[in-house]
């Protein structure tokens, strides 16, 4: 009995934190289903209404375009990141050479870099390449700035593989490419899945490069689109909340499907 009493403050603390972390989401979703009228009369009612008018309106005002743009940029960037990181990690973690440790350190230290310190030259470079205000402009920076953490995570996984299988393949005369593609990569599939999810989350929500490199609405990704929505809909709060909910939906779908992967990837991605 005493033991049970002792847990009550803990439950109370857990509940307070639950409200703190969860309430904003509840507010967002509940508001998105209200009419404007209802929002003004009862801004905090949670389950009062269920009408999808706001979602339709959000879609009609460009959300579909932003969504497509985000999908395109995210898919291409994530594939590039994972492919380039795997290529780089193969020699870095499977073949020891003179500067391999130093090189790995240089690659990984990119994690510490604030994007601001590269923003102006990348802006100028993008203009010179004729890519300014076009969707492909985002792919380069997104790839570059997600490589450090990807190389960090993947090189740890790759260096844990035992050498025996590889050696056997070498004696059989397998080329480096076949060892890489048919032996090493399949053995790190779980790590690759973690990388895909991790990078998806980062690229999907990236804001500042988009802000600097993209100006016209038809090329905007979701985070930029949402900001634009706010400019247009600051009066129509329910429609804005519908847009925010829709934009966050893919993240939470992935999260509920692969919670363990995200959590473990995060713990592994931070400096141990």
């Amino acid at each position, binding site marked *: 009995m005493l033991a049970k009493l002792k*847990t009550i403050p803990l439950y109370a603390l857990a509940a307070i934190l639950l409200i703190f972390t969860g309430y904003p989401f509840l507010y967002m979703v509940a508001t998105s289903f209200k009419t404007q009228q209802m929002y003004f009369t009862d801004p905090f009612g949670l389950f009062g209404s269920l009408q999808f008018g706001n979602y339709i309106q959000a879609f009609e005002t460009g959300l579909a375009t932003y969504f497509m743009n985000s999908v395109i940029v995210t898919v291409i960037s994530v594939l590039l990141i994972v492919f*380039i990181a795997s290529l780089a990690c193969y020699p870095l973690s499977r073949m*020891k050479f003179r500067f391999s440790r130093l090189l790995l350190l240089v690659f990984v230290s990119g994690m510490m870099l604030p994007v601001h310190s590269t*923003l102006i030259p990348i802006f100028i470079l993008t203009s010179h390449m004729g890519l300014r205000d076009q969707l492909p402009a985002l792919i380069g920076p997104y790839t*570059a700035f997600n490589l450090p953490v990807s190389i960090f995570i993947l090189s740890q996984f790759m260096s844990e593989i035992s050498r025996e299988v590889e*050696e056997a393949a070498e004696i059989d005369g397998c080329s*480096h490419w076949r060892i890489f593609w048919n032996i090493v990569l399949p053995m790190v599939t779980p790590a690759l899945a973690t990388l895909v999810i991790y990078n998806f989350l980062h690229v999907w929500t990236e804001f500042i490069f988009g802000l600097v490199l993209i100006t016209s609405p038809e090329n905007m990704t979701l985070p930029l689109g949402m900001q634009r929505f706010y400019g247009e809909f600051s009066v129509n709060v329910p429609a804005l909340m519908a847009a925010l909910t829709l934009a966050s939906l893919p993240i939470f779908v992935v999260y509920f499907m692969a919670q363990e992967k995200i959590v473990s990837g*995060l713990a592994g991605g931070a400096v141990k």
Partner: protein
Amino acid sequence: MPGRCGRFADCRRDPLPPLADRYGKDVGSLSEVIVNQTSNSSLRKGKKNRRRHRGWVICMYLAPAVFVYCIYIFYPIIETFHLSLYEWDGGFTRRFLGFDNFDKLFSDRIFWKALLNNLKIVFTSVFLQIPLGLIMALLLLSKLRGRRFLQTIYFMPHLMSTVAIGLLWMFIYDPVNGAMNRLLNVFGIPNIAWLSDEKFAMPAVLLVIIWQHAPFYMILFKAAIVGISEDLFEAAAIDGANAFEKFRYITFPLLIPTIVTSSTLAIVGSLKSFDTFYIMTLGGPNNSTELIGTYMYKQAFIHFNMGYGSAVAFMMFLFAFIAAGLLQVIEARRKVKGAA
């Protein structure tokens, strides 16, 4: 540590390159070389070829990453420094200034204010965010029911896009209809214009930062605590330690390295902060929430002071560089201690 011998051993394990055929028959296959013990000279020649081939392979695999790094990371950092020496509005002409931009920067009141605000983020991380993350982690590892559900919800804020977070919280902070004011009204506190009041804007945005990032530390601490050996807790239990004593004398001391590393990372995190502040306040009102990041953005892309903006950006690089160096030193010292 593999020494010179170790490297040679590695070489020998190397596969026979398909290219080897081009270098003549005497190379043979690797196993043949080892089994037949071919003459010394041909062995040396084969080894040399293999080493050259191996160098090629390494370069080819690293090439794409090096290429991307050069274009989007190394070159921009150097160019940022180069541009910081000019007065330039983004047009065709620019004027060389030497270090004048930096001179101006060091006597720029707003820059120092921004730096102070960045420090506020660091302190908030160390003294509020990290402890909150630790408390959340301890709750998740306690004997409460529904821990999985708690973790699922606790972690959600960290996933959401910062733009969405900023916009969402702007309505929570709404001076008239916002949830925050309604909550405080219950305690008899009158409405506050959170984001447009110089006194309240910074704490208001910092609360959002805590909301977003505490779950990250929760996950770090949870992983670190799970990694602590169960034997220690059992031994403590035999000695009659209660839950608090176990935390005080086992968990906490063993978490100190994680706390130190997280605190150093908080410096880097603060330098990277931008989105939430840009969305919610744009550095205002009256620069009260200005960060180095928002200040740099405004100088370069709103006022088109590209040279001055570059000087701010280069300072950000220097600060991050120092923080990264600090982290390296801490890690190295920890390793030395671990070995001793």
